[in-house]
């Protein structure tokens, strides 16, 4: 159209809140380093079958446990298996559990919280009471019980961990939705006569997204920790599969003679947790509306 040609050259570009948040995040070096590390670990895990220096089951009984060398950058275990390779394969499982269980928690938590927050009233009271009661349950013990009773099954592990972590998500989402519903811009969208789905998609969801992203980022390390904890106790991932928790468990058994078997898996786990936590903290600072005012 004519009018468009006439005006377009003089329009100034605005800076959206997402854009502002990105600018703030990119100034936070720790968070960026965290993001870089997370991407790196995910990439390595994804490519492990192709880039791992040795085969997962490849043993070298003659070599036995050997300290780090140019052949084996992180040394080998008592069967002469390359530790770097095992850490890479273990990371696949650990990260996989972390992301999938978080996704489970997200899906349940968001739906539950959003429905409760949006409908409000009695439905909300009932749904939140359910969450309260579940909160009071000793979940750690339940997970152990589940793993004992039904055997150590990775699917069950997803389910069990997801079932714990969704509670907080539901509370956060509900709080967001409740407070957004009272916001005047949502009220004015109602007054505009916009249909419900438009109000939800255009006015509520984009504004509730920030805290959800932050919490999701911080849930992943929690989940990974839980998995490692269970695996360490021998109640999580089972051999021949491996995870960082399990590797740390093996490392502890022989740490006096072969400390590298403890230190490297521990380092891998801690670094990943670091990266995710720094990224989560950075996202929180970047997305916090209070810092976006000036």
């Amino acid at each position, binding site marked *: 159209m004519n009018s468009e040609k006439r005006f377009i050259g003089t329009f100034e570009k605005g800076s959206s809140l997402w854009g502002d948040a990105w600018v703030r995040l990119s100034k936070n070096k720790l968070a960026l380093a965290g993001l870089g590390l997370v991407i790196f670990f995910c990439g390595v895990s994804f490519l492990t079958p192709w880039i791992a220096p040795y085969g997962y089951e490849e043993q070298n009984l003659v070599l036995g446990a050997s300290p780090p060398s140019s052949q084996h950058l992180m040394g080998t275990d008592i069967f002469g298996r390359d530790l770097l390779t095992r850490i890479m394969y273990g990371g696949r499982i650990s990260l996989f559990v972390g992301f999938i269980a978080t996704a489970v928690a997200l899906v349940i938590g968001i739906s539950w919280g959003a429905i409760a927050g949006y409908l409000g009233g009695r439905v909300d009271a009932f749904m939140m009471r359910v969450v*309260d*009661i579940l*909160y*009071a*349950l*000793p979940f*750690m*013990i*339940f997970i*152990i*019980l*589940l*793993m*004992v*009773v*039904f*055997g150590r099954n990775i699917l069950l592990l997803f389910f069990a961990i997801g079932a714990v972590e969704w509670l907080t998500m539901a509370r956060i989402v509900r709080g967001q939705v409740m407070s957004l519903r009272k916001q005047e811009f949502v009220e004015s969208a109602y007054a505009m006569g916009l249909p419900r789905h438009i109000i939800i998609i255009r006015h509520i969801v984009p504004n509730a997204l920030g805290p959800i992203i932050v919490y999701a980022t911080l849930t992943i*390390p929690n989940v990974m*920790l839980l998995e*490692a*904890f269970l695996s*360490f*106790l*021998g*109640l999580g991932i089972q051999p021949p599969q491996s995870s960082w*928790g399990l590797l*740390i*468990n093996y*490392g*502890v058994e022989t*740490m*006096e003679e072969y*400390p590298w078997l*403890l*230190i490297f898996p*521990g380092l891998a*786990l*801690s670094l990943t*947790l*670091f990266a995710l*936590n*720094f990224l989560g903290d950075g996202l929180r600072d970047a997305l916090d509306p209070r810092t976006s005012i000036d």
Partner: protein
Amino acid sequence: MLRFALGRILQAIPVLLAVITITFLLVHSAPGGPFSADKAVPPEVLIALEAQYKLDLPLWQQYSGYLGDVLRGDFGPSFKYPGRTVNELIATGFPVTAELGIYAMLVAISIGVIAGVLAAVRPNSIQDYVPMSLAMIGICMPSFLLGPLLVLFFGIYLEWLPISGWNNMPGDKILPAITLGTGYAAYVARLTRGGMIEVLSQDYIRTARAKGLPEFLIVFKHGLRGGLIPVVAFLGPAFAGMLGGSFVVETIFDIPGLGRFYVQAAFNRDYTMILGTTVFFAGLIIIFNIISDILAMWMNPRLQSKTHGPEK
């Protein structure tokens, strides 16, 4: 206030009942009977054993019987340690776990609150960065990694402290308490910092400054009370987490506590022990959640007076 406490306690009853029921059903739905893992038990012995442990009764009778026993405080006999009851095992293990938990909690609260307040008083300075970086390390260093590393360093290389046992040698409680407490100290520090920064930016802190009060009074009298509310609310979950953490710490340091019994019971499939300890733990956690809720409530006068005295 009283009504709130009473309400919370009443609420806890169905939760506890649910825990007992779910645990009971879970344990009894386990594939394979409790004795099937043992090698070649003669059938007649098996029947006798099942009769002894009332496993031949219908499930609902077992359940109601168990419920009655639990209400009377009787968790029944252990499957794996013939002649010993679950109550005895809990009575032996729990004092040790409780002592460990108290030390760990002391470590968590004292270090956490001090670090958090230091950081909040001067945010974005060295005084903030150092404790908060340490807190981050504490969070990213789970107990099952920190414990062995501490053992390796202080126990094996430096030979300063004993590496296992409980009450056998002087100083053998230090490493377990630190191992269990550190992660929570880190959480407490972060919560304290957040709460304090929030409170210290309130208008009423400016009012206190305008009154010419000394800075320590502003921080500790006007700030700390509000700033610690999130910490107090966290104590309930922290307690629950520490119970879980005690499984690992007691295993690492070879401490004869309830946590280790529980893990052993899990591996031995000692069902009555699992059932009893779970119910016991659940009860404890619920009680601590109530206490922490009530404390948080008590610290906030606005919520406190909702139940008594009219607002004007």
